[in-house]
């Protein structure tokens, strides 16, 4: 079997994405995404799927044992199901392993956000910090993003202006994405002049919350061939995940080691030696504007990401389009589901179904996640058609 062509995404589905999905429960969002994905893959979920993986975190769900609430709305009643307390791309990694391990030749991955239900988002973020040494009473948990941004800019030589260009680019890209709710035409000045939340980080450099669910159907090569209906399979050519220390005091805030390490491994699996020439586009984490720059560098897409973005090389018509979908800055942050949204948008691009955002004949992309503050964890995947 050719390397990088053993496991494929054969179906994708999404619920509606919105800043607030009022009146619709997270289970109904999941059901909507699932129905779309199974129809896209051309499968009968109750008979064909041998393994289900959800990605959710109890505090964001507002429910302990939240995993127990997942089966029915994705067709997993009395089927093998487990929930990954991690981001959606980690779920894709598990699906990849399930297929290769022979657990099932058809695996479903789901992740969602109903952030509009979470009225104390800051408190949930704060509770992610170490109780003895990381939580600072009365202080906004994004203090860590402020610390990291300043350190990263200092070490990398990128500028605050460069971070503003990330926001301008992604929000402009989002205007062409019918699923994006945070599109805007801004200037660098609009970004830099917005309220300082944790200096130097300003309000407009922070992705805003969004609701939605994404379901991805993953298959073995043989199964993908048997299914091959209307969709070309999107191959998971490489996937890897790393965690650095959870201790804020010991973190290397100057670089994203979880991303550079997982990228090295994922590239190796996908036989990518020169990402700059072998990758056609990237959908990567931009929870905060500076993180996109840090991740571009970690993924080896540019040495000086700031200049790369501000000179237009990451634009849809640039050398490597980055977050053509609008990213989290343009589409919203779906917490654990953000990266599965990136994978969904990537699959559409590779299948040539990205509408007004469609790039010219892309063959291969990199999708990357970060689990947010206060973590140094993330996944990198290479998808190809």
């Amino acid at each position, binding site marked *: 079997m050719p390397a990088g062509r053993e496991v494929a995404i054969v179906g994708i589905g999404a619920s509606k994405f919105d800043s607030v999905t009022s009146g619709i429960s997270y289970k109904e969002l999941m059901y909507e995404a699932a129905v779309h994905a199974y129809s896209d893959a051309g499968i009968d979920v109750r008979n064909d799927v041998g393994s289900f993986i959800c990605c959710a975190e109890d505090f964001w769900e507002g429910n302990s044992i939240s995993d127990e609430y997942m089966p029915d709305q994705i067709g997993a009643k009395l089927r093998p199901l487990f929930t990954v307390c991690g981001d959606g791309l980690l779920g894709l990694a598990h699906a990849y392993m399930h297929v290769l391990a022979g657990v099932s030749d058809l695996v479903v991955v789901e992740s969602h956000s109903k952030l509009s239900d979470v009225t104390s988002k800051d408190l949930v973020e704060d509770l992610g910090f170490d109780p*003895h040494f990381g939580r600072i009473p009365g202080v906004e948990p994004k203090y860590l993003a402020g610390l990291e941004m300043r350190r990263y800019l200092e070490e990398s030589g990128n500028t605050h202006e460069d971070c503003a260009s990330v926001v301008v680019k992604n929000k402009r890209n989002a205007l062409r994405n019918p699923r994006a709710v945070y599109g805007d035409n801004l200037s660098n000045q609009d970004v830099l002049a917005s309220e300082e939340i944790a200096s130097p980080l300003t309000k407009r450099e922070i992705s805003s919350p969004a609701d939605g669910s994404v379901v991805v159907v993953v298959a073995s090569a043989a199964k993908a061939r048997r299914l091959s209906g209307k969709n070309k399979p999107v191959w998971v050519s490489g996937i890897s995940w790393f965690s650095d220390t959870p201790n804020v005091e010991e973190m290397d805030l100057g670089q994203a080691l979880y991303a550079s390490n997982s990228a090295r491994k994922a590239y190796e699996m996908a036989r990518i030696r020169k990402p700059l020439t072998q990758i056609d586009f990237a959908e990567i984490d931009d929870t905060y504007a500076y993180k996109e720059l840090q991740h571009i560098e970690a993924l080896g897409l540019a040495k000086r990401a700031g200049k790369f973005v501000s000179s237009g090389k990451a634009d849809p018509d640039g050398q490597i389009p980055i977050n053509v979908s609008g990213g989290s800055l343009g589409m919203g942050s779906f917490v654990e589901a953000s990266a599965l949204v990136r994978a969904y948008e990537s699959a559409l691009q590779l299948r040539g179904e990205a509408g007004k955002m469609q790039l010219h004949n892309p063959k291969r992309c990199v999708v990357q996640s970060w689990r947010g503050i206060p973590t140094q964890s993330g996944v990198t995947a290479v998808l190809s058609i």
Partner: protein
Amino acid sequence: MEKITSETKIGVVKDHIPLKYNYTAGVAGDRFLQLLKQGKLQASQCTQCHKLYLPPKIFCKDCFSQLNEWKDVAEDSAYVYSFTSVKKEEGPRELIALVKFDGVEGGLLGRLKSSREEPRMGMKVRPVFKQKSERTGELSDIEYFEKVNY
């Protein structure tokens, strides 16, 4: 599939989660906090790879050894690794810094005493402890870090 829409206002249950925990600091954390209460800073040391951990741990994340050695942290080696001015729900903004110490893995998070002078990256600082009677054996026993001119 038909688009799911909501025509009528559907009820929302408002609730909160009043959870309580007693977080155990552990062997290393407890010792560190006891010493902190006395106004002392100690790190645990790995005898294999010579790393000093602050806040202390009983394990080395690099070589996986168990750590039993303790060493004073040279307070005059403290510097600002990064800092941020944070917006608060109420009251004035606050300066938060991650302070590191030469030759130490890790460091301490704390408040930075504001002065007319803008803080700088790499700025030398020193920890200022609360009055002995006010200390509680928590990280906040360090009231703030302040700039020093060595």
